[in-house]
Each structure stands twice: as C-alpha cells, then as structure tokens.
C-alpha cells in the first residue's frame, strides 16, 4: 500500500514537472477550434507596440479569421535569442531582423520565405530594400529607413551664420567657429554608439565604395590602407582640436543626446532615428541633418549614409505562411506604413508616404540625395566590426592612427581563413 502511494506520488510529481516543461515550450502559432488561425509577429521595437497594436486591430477587423499575436524582446535579447525561437517555428511567423550579421545568419539557416513574386514589393522604394535581397531573390523587406549622420541645431548654425560645409576644410572651419563661441561642435557618444555611427559618414567619401569592408573581410583590402588610416587621422584631428566634448570616450548615448538637446552642442553624431526623441524632450529645438564631407567638394561622391533596417520576413518554418504573407502585405500598404511612421516617428522605406511631423520630413527630404548604405553594416563578422570601431576608440584614447589600424587589422587577419 505504502509502495503504491509512493508510486502514485512519483507519477504525479513527474507529470507536474513535464506539464511545467511542456507548457513553457508551448506553441503560440496555432489554429483554434473556431477555425481562427493565430500567427505570431516577433520584433524588438518595444516602443512601437502601441502603434503596431492599432495596425493589428485593423488587420484583424479586415481578416476575422486571423489573429496576430505580437511578441517583443529588447534589441539585446533579440540579437541573442530570436534565432533559437525562430528555428523551431514556435514563434515569429512574421519576424524582424537586423541587417548585417543577423540577416546573414538567419538567411544561411534558410529561415526566410522567398518574397520575390509578392505584389506588395512594388510599394517599396526598390533601392532601399536591396539589402534584403540575395542571389536575385527578395527574402526580407526592410521597413524602417534611417540616415546615420549627424543632426545639427539649425538655430545655432543661423546664429553664427554657418551652413553645412561641402568639404573637409569647411567642416573644420565650422567646428572652429563653434568652439570659439563656447559651443561644443560635436556631441559624441564615444562609449557606445558614437564610433559605429560617425564612422559611416567619415569613411563614405574616403573610399566611396559600397563594398570596401566586404573586401576587408575577404582579405582583398586592409584597414592599414590609406582610406582607413585617413579616416582615423581625421577622427584624431577632430579630437585633438577639441571638437568633441571633453572625455568623449566616457560619454554614452543618453549623455551626448542631453548635451545636444540642452543646446550645449551644435551637432550630435547619431542618426535620424534620434530626431523625434530630441523634439519630444525639447519641443523648441530646430534640427536638420548633415554629413561631414571628408574630401574636397569635387571629390565627394556621397552626401550621406542611410540604413534600411527592421527587415521583415516570413518564417520558412511557419505553419501558416499564407496568413503571415497576408499580414506582411497589410503592413506594406502605403496608408498603413504612413500611419506607422507618423505614430512612431520613424521613416519608412515605402513609396508615397505622407509624413505629418517636421522631424519625419527632415529625413524625408534626404530621399532624393545620393546616400550610401551604412558601411558598418556591410561588415558581417561582428568581431571585425568591433575591431573597426575599437580602432576609433584607440585613436581617441591617444594611439597613432597607423598603429590603431594595424592592431585592428591583426584581429581581422585572424578571422580570415
């Protein structure tokens, strides 16, 4: 009797444990008894959930048999855990991904469904969704558009009679004028996003090529080549002249932003994604975008740098690909994308978008300019990416540009096999 009791308790305990384990591994993408299909939408933009939920509600009204379950992770978590979740197909029938290393890894794992023949692709600006294409096929559609170049305070520029310069000498002169007048020329978040953002516009005309870093990763070009040593030398020039705020290597994104928002700095080395946030914190602020031109005016090929990101795809392991595509098609309608843009303050990659805020129009004005896809995102190996941005930190910390380039190249050489 005692044994019987013991056995039943053991079975009960095991059942409970299994229930706990299995319910944790539950599938959120499923069909219910009433014939409704539930699809999962996985992304990292927690700040956009309200805007997306409104869009989802509209979609569900138009498609009563489809329910969209939105799940968000922080961007750090997204980098680290999204691939595991997507691989087993349990979540993310429609999912977002970062361009560069994450897109390359997910693409290699065959997690994207071919979207080449989908009619909604015509709604996008073809040049801006290139980054989601591979081997002649469209695997993902980047939804957001960002210009990774400094933001400037137009009132400060006006006060000192300054205009965005067209060459390197002009840029140095502009910084000198600002400094002489007690204004920090560039607020630079050297501790985190600064090097990775500002390097893009600094390098775009020193080596006006779409694939220079692809060549570096393939061993066909080196960081010790003139283009990168020159870029590092120009970073050093800005730093040595005191054109970044003091101790810029210890400054994080939020603190650099505060210097700009408070009017202590005239330029903020970040990107257009920051415009709406700045305006929210200081509604009086008048902002625009510029890019440092690091060569003479006649040698400049690019005017700025753009990134198409938040790359939406349909999971190849989804049990409901038709419904997932339907949702992606809905997101790809210009009026829906306009709604998303205006509610979140993010520019989008679609055509015929009506932006209703000055910040969105600032970036919108850059659509017709000659911009280069963000060079940093063409570095697919994150160890290499870190070596490149760390070489900027090394120079700002006092290393010679040649030495910093050599040290970074040594790390890249180890990655090339």
């Amino acid at each position, binding site marked *: 009797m005692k044994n019987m009791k013991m056995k039943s308790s053991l079975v009960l305990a095991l059942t409970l*444990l299994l229930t706990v*384990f299995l319910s944790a591994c539950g599938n959120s993408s499923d069909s219910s008894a009433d014939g409704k299909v539930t699809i999962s939408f996985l992304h990292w933009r927690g700040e956009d959930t309200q805007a997306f939920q409104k869009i989802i509600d509209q979609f569900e009204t138009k498609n009563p048999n489809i329910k969209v379950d939105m799940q968000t992770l922080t961007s750090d978590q997204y980098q680290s855990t999204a691939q595991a979740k997507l691989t087993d197909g349990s979540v993310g029938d429609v999912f977002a991904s970062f361009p560069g290393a994450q897109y390359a890894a997910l693409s290699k794992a065959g997690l994207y469904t071919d979207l080449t023949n989908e009619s909604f692709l015509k709604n996008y600006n073809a040049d801006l969704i290139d980054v989601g294409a591979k081997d002649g096929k469209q695997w993902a559609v980047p939804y957001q558009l960002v210009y990774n170049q400094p933001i400037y305070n137009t009132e400060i520029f006006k006060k000192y009679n300054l205009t965005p310069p067209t060459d390197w000498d002009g840029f140095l002169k502009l910084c000198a004028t600002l400094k002489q007048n007690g204004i920090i020329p560039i607020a630079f978040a050297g501790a985190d996003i600064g090097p990775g953002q500002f390097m893009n516009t600094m390098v775009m005309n020193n080596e006006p090529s779409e694939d220079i870093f692809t060549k570096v990763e393939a061993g066909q070009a080196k960081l010790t080549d003139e283009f990168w040593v020159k870029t590092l030398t120009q970073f050093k020039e800005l730093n040595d002249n005191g054109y970044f705020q003091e101790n810029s290597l210890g400054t994080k994104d939020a603190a650099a932003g505060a210097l700009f928002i408070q009017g202590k700095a005239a330029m903020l080395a970040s990107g257009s994604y920051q415009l709406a946030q700045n305006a929210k914190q200081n509604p009086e602020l008048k902002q625009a975008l510029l890019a440092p031109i690091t060569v003479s005016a006649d040698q400049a090929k690019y005017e700025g740098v753009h990134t198409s990101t938040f790359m939406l795809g349909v999971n190849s392991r989804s049990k409901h690909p038709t419904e997932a595509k339907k949702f992606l098609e809905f997101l790809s309608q210009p009026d829906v994308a306009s709604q998303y843009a205006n509610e979140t303050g993010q520019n989008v990659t679609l055509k015929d978008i009506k932006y209703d805020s000055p910040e969105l129009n600032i970036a919108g004005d850059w659509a017709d300019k000659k911009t280069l896809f963000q060079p940093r995102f063409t570095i697919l190996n994150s160890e290499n990416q870190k070596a490149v941005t760390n070489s900027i930190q090394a120079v700002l*910390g006092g290393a010679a540009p040649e030495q910093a380039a050599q040290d970074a190249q040594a790390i890249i050489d180890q990655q090339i096999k």
Partner: protein
Amino acid sequence: MNRKTLWFFMLPGLLLYTGLFIYPALSGLFYSFTNWDGVSTSYDFVGISNYKDSFDSIVFRKAFFNNVKFMLTVVIIQTIVSLILALILAKNTRTRVFLRALYFFPAILSSVSVGLIWSFIYDPSLGLLNTALTSGGLEQFTASWTGDANIALYAIAFVQIWAHAGQMMIVFIAGLHAIPEELMEAARIDGATRFQIFRKVTWPLLAPSATIVVSYTTIQSFKAFDLIFVMTDGGPNYATEILTTYIYHLAFSNYSFGLASAGSMIFLVLLGLLTMAQFKALRRGGANG
C-alpha cells in the same frame, strides 16, 4: 527515511540540475568541436580547431588578462575593505547595526541597476562624480572614468567592491561574533595592544571566514559579466573585455556558437581549477581554524 523516499525528494532538483546545468554543459562540450552558428540545423566537426583559435586569438588573450587583473583587484581590495568595516561595526550598538544594514544594501540591488546608476555617476560631462570633484575645487582629479583605457577596468572594479563589500562584511562579522570574548579579555589582561590582539587572536580565529570571503569573491569576480556588459560592454578598445563578455559577443553577436562553446569550456576548466585551489585553501583554513 528509506532510499526510495530520498530519491523522491531529490528527483525534482536532480531533473532541474540535469536539464539546466549538466545537459547544457555537455551540449557545450559537443558543440565546441563543431562550427555550429547557433541557427542552422547542420554543422561540421572541426576537431580541436576552435580551442586552437581561442588560444591564438588576440582578443581572447586580452580578455583573459583583463579577467585576472579584475579578479585580483576585487579580491584584494574587497577583502581588506570588508574586514575593516567588520572590525569597526562588529559590536551590536544601534548605530552600528544601522550602518551594517546601510553597507549591505547595495548587495540587494540587481547588478544591472547598479551598472546603470554608476554609468550616470561616472559620466564625464554630466556625471555626479566629476561635478562633485569640480565643485569641491578638485578639478585636477576629474577623469573619463570608464572612457580612459588605463582606468576603466579599475573604475568598474570599484563598483563591484561597492556593491559586495557589505555582503562580505557580514561574513566577517559572523566570524568575529564566534570568537570567545574570554580570549580577548585574557589577552587584554596580559597587556596585549589592540594590534597584537588582532594579530595573535582575532586574525587566526577569523581565518575560516577570510577563506570563505576570498573564495566567494574570487569566483564571483572571475565570473563578472553584468556590470561590465552594462557599463562598458568591453570597451574602450577592449580595455574591459573579459572572458564572459568575449564569449557572449562570439555567440550572440557573431553567431560563432562553436567557437563560443570552446571559449566556455576553457572558462569552465579555469573556474574548476580556481574552485579546486580555493577548496583546498578552505579545508586548510578550516583545519587551522
């Protein structure tokens, strides 16, 4: 209690331990011999090349030396600071009990919160530390605390000590309370000075507590991840990169799970060796005490 009942009570813990520790560790060992990217369903066996690449890696070596520097700084300073605090606050008066609670308080905060708070304090332009130094006429001592490659690791070590010295103080206080008062009294009657009492009576009897503090701090500081991840993410220019942040970046930013697994295995062995050394010291300390 019979054997079956014992197994019954052990089973949930054993299952959890197997599922959450043993199985992942064995998987890690398996994947360390592959080139798995963490996403694909296929991978190739690459023998010991991940281990060779780890030992050859410039960044891995930098991370290892940073790890040792960080660990030594924290172990030495944290042990001394917590011992001094314990000696000052050992007696049970109302003020001292309040101060003990106050110094212990940072230990209950999550390390991510601690990291964020100190990031703001350390900010060179708007941070509390430089602002206080400047307003106190000590401008020459302001610095880029986490931006200067020469001091960033020590600035984070300071935060680690700030967060855990109070916790270790409690261990020392427990040790001090276990020392019989008669021994102190006998030493005082014999005319021993305060320093002599500490050296000849307190310290030898405090050895087991000291061993616990040193062992715990060694392992804790060697495994440090959250503070560094939040405050500098290994920067500037690898100055604060340690093995755990390096392994994390390899796995979750670079999708090199095979290589990251090899790094984890090396890290596991290093931790194992450290633990064994500590265990031996602990037994010796216990025996002596």
